[in-house]
């Protein structure tokens, strides 16, 4: 087995510790920026839905600011966002390189996309349910948590899965500017030194990661759809 691996993946086997470290870095980036984006994106997505015309907290000013702000950040390509945010990243994270330095731009790249996913998921709610909840004396917070979020879990799970998977793509890109992780590993060895087996292994790990997330997302969605 060991020999077979040595034959098939000569370059990977010689730098196993590096490989494990890069997998770890990818996971750390994913978890941190994922959790922060989950919270922020959820808040923004809910705010968008509630403040839009006909929403239960209709507020044109807040809606317009959020709507335009999200469009602005979504139109910047991630690789440019990475460079453009360096001063801000230094301010927040204390450094602009390494895993810590990658988290701020990853959050900025993910939150606008994720809040649109949440907005789309919440838009699927039948407005009659809000009316029914109001007629039963539910307050606004109750409507957000017990009606919108509860009824839309399926759609939210779908949007979260899509976002998490696109976030994996972004972490690989962040690797290119010195954040470490599988993307960095694949570029440094697989691309720059033409060690093709490194690229393959990195891809296989990413495919496994994506599949796990997709399976989990689909499971949650199924469980909550009746």
């Amino acid at each position: 087995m060991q020999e077979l691996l040595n034959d098939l993946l000569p370059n990977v086997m010689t730098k196993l510790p590096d490989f494990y470290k890069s997998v770890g870095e990818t996971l750390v980036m994913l978890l941190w920026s994922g959790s922060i984006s989950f919270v922020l994106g959820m808040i923004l997505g809910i705010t968008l839905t509630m403040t839009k015309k006909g929403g239960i907290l209709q507020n044109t000013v807040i809606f317009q600011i959020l709507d335009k702000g999200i469009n602005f950040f979504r139109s910047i390509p991630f690789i440019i966002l990475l460079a453009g945010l360096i001063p801000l990243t230094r301010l927040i994270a204390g450094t602009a390189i390494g895993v810590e330095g990658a988290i701020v731009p990853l959050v900025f790249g993910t939150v606008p996309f994720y809040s649109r996913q949440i907005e789309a998921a919440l838009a699927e709610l039948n407005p009659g349910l809000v009316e029914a909840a109001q007629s039963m004396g539910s307050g606004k917070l109750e409507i957000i948590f017990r009606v919108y979020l509860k009824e839309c879990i399926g759609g939210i799970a779908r949007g979260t899965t899509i976002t998490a998977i696109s976030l994996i793509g972004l972490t690989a890109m962040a690797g290119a500017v010195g954040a470490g992780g599988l993307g960095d590993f694949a570029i440094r060895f697989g691309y720059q030194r033409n060690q093709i087996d490194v690229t393959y292994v990195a891809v296989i790990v990413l495919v496994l990661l994506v599949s796990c997330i997709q399976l989990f997302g689909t499971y949650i969605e199924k469980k909550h759809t009746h």
Partner: protein
Amino acid sequence: MIRFENVSKRFEAEGHAVEAVKNVNLEMEKGKIYGIIGFSGAGKSTLVRCINLLERPTNGKVFIDDTELTGLSDKELREKRKKIGMIFQHFNLFSSRNVFQNVSYPLKHSGLKKEEINKKVNSLLELVGLSDKAKAYPSQLSGGQKQRVAIARALANDPHILLSDEATSALDPQTTKSILNLLKELNERLQITIVVITHEMQVVKEICVKVFVMEDGEVVEDGDVFQVFANPKKKITKDFVDSTSNLNKIHELIEKKVSVTELFPGECILKFKYLERSVSEALVSQISRQFHLDINIIFGNIELIGENPIGGLVSIVKGKREDIEEAIYYLRQKNVGVEVILDAGVIE
């Protein structure tokens, strides 16, 4: 119980305003079933939403008992709404919750313990006849069952008023009947005031005691269901009456010159209509005997409103001119409406 004072509701949409409810004054007493009937766009849904302030009137005041709802804070209003149940045309059940969870939704924060909630929900499900469906999800239920769940949910906080917004319009006739019976039963058992909006005359006839007829945002006619429908004054009310009766088909038949409407000299087509309650005399036989007339009933339409027959007969009457005239006079004395639809003239 429910009182509207000069209630108006305007919607502003892209520059032009629509007045959905215009200056409505009305009063509804406790424990009765009221109907609000009107065609689509008449403003009846908006009007009923002004009762629980899902739509806040632009003008006017809404009272329930002696509380002015329009003057309450948001929090007080939410408490009041718990005592006003509402059911909808498309049921509006929470699809991610099963039947039990749907019915228990309004009981959270009600101060009841878990066992008390269980007991309450089970008794509500029993009341609407769905005890065996507690674990089912709305997608597994039929339309009628969904509306029963919605009714149980609306009753969870023991409301004094139940608003029904076209609750039977998406159901087939048989299911409609069973839901209407359920509403009637609830009214009798719980003494709950029910306000039913509908565009179907059948619904009003079946369960309502009083009716408000709406057109263009205004209540154009109101009163006791029998009186309003026996003597409709406004055209719209007549249209509703006609919508369930075939008495006016006679005009079409005459136009098409169908053979039953071909008259011989000495015959005429008369329409008799009940205008009052309890017409129980054998009037047809009486006039036939008394005035020596041959009466051939072409068709009729008699239905019950509450316990009173409403409707009429279209018949060909044959006899001497003066006998026919006397018979008409006699019937009018007995409060039967008589209309001469076609007259073939006297026998030469």
